[in-house]
């Protein structure tokens, strides 16, 4: 059984059809990319999977559990985490706190223990800090743990966002344009990094990206969207030479103007 099964998902904004009849089956451990020009509906799909939007039609299923209609926080606890196209860190909080917050649903102490700092509070907080710091050190951010997130350089902010997402213990990680704003060199490093976290954290990864260098380099399968519809899918090299895809990106060639 696939880890994530999306069937016939359609979503409207007002009268506009942002995603139409989207299907995807993600096997555990896969690394799949969704590409397509601006405004093709890619981020909308992430918002539908994570419960930020509620699909107008269709079903989204995570190892047997229907996700449509569940709240984003609930879906996250079921094992889906994500990053954002335009980095959404908690800017005025420290790097450590950013990761600690992602432990919210795992901390097993009650509001009363929160108010009085008794019971499991001490032990749990110690555990959360240690786990957070471990994660940060994996991402080479541990020395910055007490900086405010907004003061981090751009690349580190991107990494912190992934670290924060991993703190929720996901099975499935959704990366929304992780390479945005990076130069070719940084993209090479990011590719290594994504491969490596997939192994190390046992993840299934779905990513949206414009930087073809990255997508072609690491994705096992691709889905190409344009105007909310899937226009192509297959292996990276197939996609690269698919005329429909070329047209979606570069515009049509020839023809009367």
């Amino acid at each position, binding site marked *: 059984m696939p880890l994530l099964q999306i069937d016939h998902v359609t979503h409207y904004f007002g009268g506009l059809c942002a995603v139409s009849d989207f299907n995807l089956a993600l096997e555990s451990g896969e690394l799949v990319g969704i590409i397509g020009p601006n405004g093709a509906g890619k981020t909308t799909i992430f918002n539908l999977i994570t419960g930020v939007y509620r699909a107008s039609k269709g079903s989204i299923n995570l190892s047997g559990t229907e996700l449509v209609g569940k709240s984003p926080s609930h879906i996250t606890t079921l094992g889906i985490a994500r990053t954002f196209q335009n980095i959404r860190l908690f800017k005025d909080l420290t790097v450590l706190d950013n990761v600690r917050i992602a432990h919210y649903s795992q901390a097993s102490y009650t509001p009363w223990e929160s108010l009085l700092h008794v019971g499991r509070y001490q032990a749990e907080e110690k555990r959360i800090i240690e786990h957070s710091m471990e994660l940060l050190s994996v991402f080479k951010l541990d020395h910055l*743990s007490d900086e405010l997130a907004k003061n981090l350089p751009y690349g580190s902010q991107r990494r912190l966002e992934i670290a924060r997402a991993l703190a929720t213990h996901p099975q499935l990680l959704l990366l929304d344009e992780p390479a945005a704003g990076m130069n070719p060199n940084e993209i090479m490093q990011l590719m290594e990094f994504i491969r490596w976290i997939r192994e190390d954290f046992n993840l299934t990864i779905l990513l949206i990206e414009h930087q073809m260098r990255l997508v072609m380099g690491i994705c096992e399968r691709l889905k190409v969207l344009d105007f909310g519809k899937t226009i192509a899918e297959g292996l990276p090299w197939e996609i690269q030479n698919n005329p429909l895809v070329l047209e979606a990106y570069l515009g049509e060639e020839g023809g009367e103007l």
Partner: protein
Amino acid sequence: MKQPSSAFTVWRARWETIANNRKALPILLVLGLLLSFAIPQFNLVNPYIQLIIMYVGINIILTTSLNLINGYMGEFSVGHAGFMAVGAYASAVLTTQVLPSELNPWLFPLVVLAGGIAAGLVGLVVAIPSFRTRGDYLAIVTLAFNMIVKSIIENIEAIGGPRGIPGVEKLTTLPWTFFWTVLAVWVIRNFIYSNHGRGVISIREDEIASDLMSVNTRQAKLLAFTISSFFAGIAGALFAHLLQFISPRVFDIIKSTDILIMVYLGGIGSITGSVLGATIYTVLLEVLRPLGMWRMVLMPLVLVLLMLFRPRGIMGLREFRWLIPLQDLLGSKRWRQKKEASDATPAN
């Protein structure tokens, strides 16, 4: 190097030593408690100043609790006096109409607690429909709530209607004020430095991201709002038994405005700020009394200037270090030390 030796830098250095010294805290608390008993006992300061000190304490409770919503959660609640009224009336009805008066001094802590619980429950009821949409929705609901509470009280003859309850026993003493103020500040501080509190703060930073990081935002909001109104109720109960007379007019929107000003003066998202804001505002109003009505002209000007030059208030988002729990302060450092130690030990 040029040695800065002005009185200001010396004073500032001293202040920072105190402000950042964790050991100062228990000493200050014990000292404070002793003083709170000694002052009325030996009349160390005149009764007028004692009264001001008690008002400062009550205002600290109000400011800190409102800061939880407006500063930490980033919502905009404007009707805090409404919750204060609930606590004040609940407790005053208990001491004047329900409990035998000879028991009042003994049961006073429970009476105050009852005031807090009543306000907390009302807060929960107000909160449930209020967080449906973001933005100024809460402002409007709490504003209306403040006016509704006032109006309801005016219409209940059994609790004095518009005339209020006169002859409330003066049960609020300096030690009790000290106790409740410290308790309120401590509990709210604890909450902020906990998993639930971090959830609340993340809502301020980015609600959608917070939700997607597994924070149950609805639960966190309800929790914060209940706690905030609980302490407003505590402050109301203390206030009623200090003023010895309460009426609906005391808890109108002007009172709520006062609390708002103290929060933003001291600084949003800061306990230290709330303590300072409440203290400075209350004391300044008394100190400036000789200016007569001009002080009421001056104070808003100060507020406007402060907002223009420090939009987040005096201590906005900053805290004295001794208020922060050790693990928040040192957690990362300890972890690093531990790591270095284990790295140094060769693996077998």
